[in-house]
């Protein structure tokens, strides 16, 4: 399947749809995409976030009916990470993120693509969102100085100057229907795992684009129907949702507070945001050996993974590192985490523990933090084991503690 895909000419646009236990809704979403997307070569990618078997089979059927590629995850990695995985698997120059509770309308794609190609320093383009009964849900979004967001047009009719036909520069647009360039999305680091499991990750991404000198535009000429919160309502009750929103709001203000508070009456500039320099995946020379670094659970911002990333950084010239975790993980996530800890990584791969196919010369090391906050090798063998031990000893020494950052 992968070889077949590589032989095919890559499409211009990749449409990424997430699904979690809402097979019928995803089916409708895919049908609307197939019906109303025209004038552009495109592919559809569905990322299933660990749905139950019944729902998964509905999605499988829908994908085969509509010719969509399906990426199946074993557990729910939530909105940001699942989208990152989808974007990395996409082949198009442009990516359109679509929620599965969205129904696209005729002629929606033309204005979005035109806007991304022609607007001045366009980083992302969002469509107008409407409820199924026709009420306006969002005509672009803005961030208040206190960090809370304004969904323009939700509570009262929108200001004419901000919603007339054409394009309008906004702070953010909801990622329910958002068009971006794939390379820009990846250079920005994708959705930040800091905001897992959800909320504020899209606003954060678009402010990062602004810090990179790119603007987000709201395109009033493209309209889609969005049911809103279809998935999150089934995962969390309203109290839990509020807690997550408040927690992520605090993180958001911690990162962007100075800029958003100072830009209305002052002249605060967005903080400098360095683009991620992606090293392309390529075959390493024969003398470089494979090193599998396995950690417990999912790749995250904890002490164990901090040390695993540091070991990978220290051995980047001697080994081809593969991070092994219980569940799939995007390369964006690893890059973002490494960047937050001030680590520079060379080439690497990410693999699910169940997919590892080890050769005799490969080194496999399982690392875990103990109660004294020291990371130790739980099990391991292979020619590079001694080098991993050395690197780990250097890290566990009191002088070198990981550089943490937001």
């Amino acid at each position, binding site marked *: 399947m992968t070889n077949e895909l590589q032989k095919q000419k890559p499409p211009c646009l990749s449409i990424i749809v997430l699904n979690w236990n809402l097979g019928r809704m995803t089916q409708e979403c895919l049908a609307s995409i197939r019906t109303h997307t025209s004038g552009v070569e495109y592919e559809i990618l569905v990322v299933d976030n660990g749905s139950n078997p019944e729902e998964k089979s509905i999605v499988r059927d829908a994908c085969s009916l509509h010719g969509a590629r399906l990426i199946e995850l074993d557990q729910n990695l939530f909105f940001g990470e699942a989208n990152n995985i989808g974007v990395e698997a996409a082949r198009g120059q442009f990516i359109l993120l679509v929620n599965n509770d969205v129904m696209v309308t005729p002629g929606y794609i033309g204005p979005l693509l035109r*806007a991304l190609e*022609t*607007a*001045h*320093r366009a980083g992302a383009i969002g469509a107008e969102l409407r409820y199924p009964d026709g009420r306006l849900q969002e005509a*672009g979004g*803005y961030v*208040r100085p206190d960090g809370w967001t*304004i969904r*323009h047009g939700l*509570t*009262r009719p*929108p*200001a004419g*100057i*901000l919603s*007339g036909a*054409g*394009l*309008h*520069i*906004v*702070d953010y647009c909801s990622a329910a229907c958002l068009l971006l360039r794939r390379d820009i999305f990846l250079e920005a680091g994708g959705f930040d795992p800091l905001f897992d499991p959800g909320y504020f990750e899209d606003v954060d991404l678009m402010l990062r684009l602004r810090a990179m000198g790119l*603007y987000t*535009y709201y395109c009033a000429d493209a309209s889609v129907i969005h049911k809103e919160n279809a998935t999150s309502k089934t995962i969390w009750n309203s109290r839990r949702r509020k807690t997550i929103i408040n927690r992520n709001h605090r993180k958001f203000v911690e990162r962007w507070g100075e800029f958003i508070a100072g*830009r*209305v009456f002052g002249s605060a500039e967005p903080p400098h945001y360095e683009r991620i320099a992606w090293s392309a995946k390529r075959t390493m020379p024969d003398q470089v050996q494979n090193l599998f670094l396995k950690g417990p659970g999912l790749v995250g911002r904890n002490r164990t993974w901090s040390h695993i990333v540091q070991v990978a950084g220290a051995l980047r010239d001697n080994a081809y590192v593969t991070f092994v975790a219980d569940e799939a993980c995007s390369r964006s996530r690893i890059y973002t985490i490494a960047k937050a800890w001030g680590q520079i990584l060379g080439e690497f791969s990410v693999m699910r523990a169940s997919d590892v196919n080890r050769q005799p010369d490969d080194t496999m090391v399982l690392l875990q933090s103990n109660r004294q906050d020291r990371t130790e090798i739980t099990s391991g063998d292979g020619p590079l084991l001694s080098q991993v031990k050395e690197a780990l000893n250097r890290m566990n020494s009191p002088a070198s503690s990981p550089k943490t950052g937001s």
Partner: protein
Amino acid sequence: MTPLQARCSKDSNLLILPSPEKMDCLGLPDRVTCRESVGHRMDQQDELTALKDRNAELEARMNLVTALLHDSMSSLSWRIVYRYRQLADKWRWRRSYDRKDA
């Protein structure tokens, strides 16, 4: 169309300029002069890009301020002020109408 818009749209189809009413608020000087020499082409491009950047930055800020104002006017206190203002206007108009009538 302002002279700046005319100039920019002639040079490039890349610029998304705000509507004329927004442009008037920006206070941008209409000082883009037409230099026909080929040698100045690069300078012109730089100048145009700089203007587009400034234009976009100003539009972003103006849209933000408009949205903030619009949002603040949807609060309860603002609605009360707005309602009283409407009432005041209504009675003011009625009084003047009555006087004229008399």
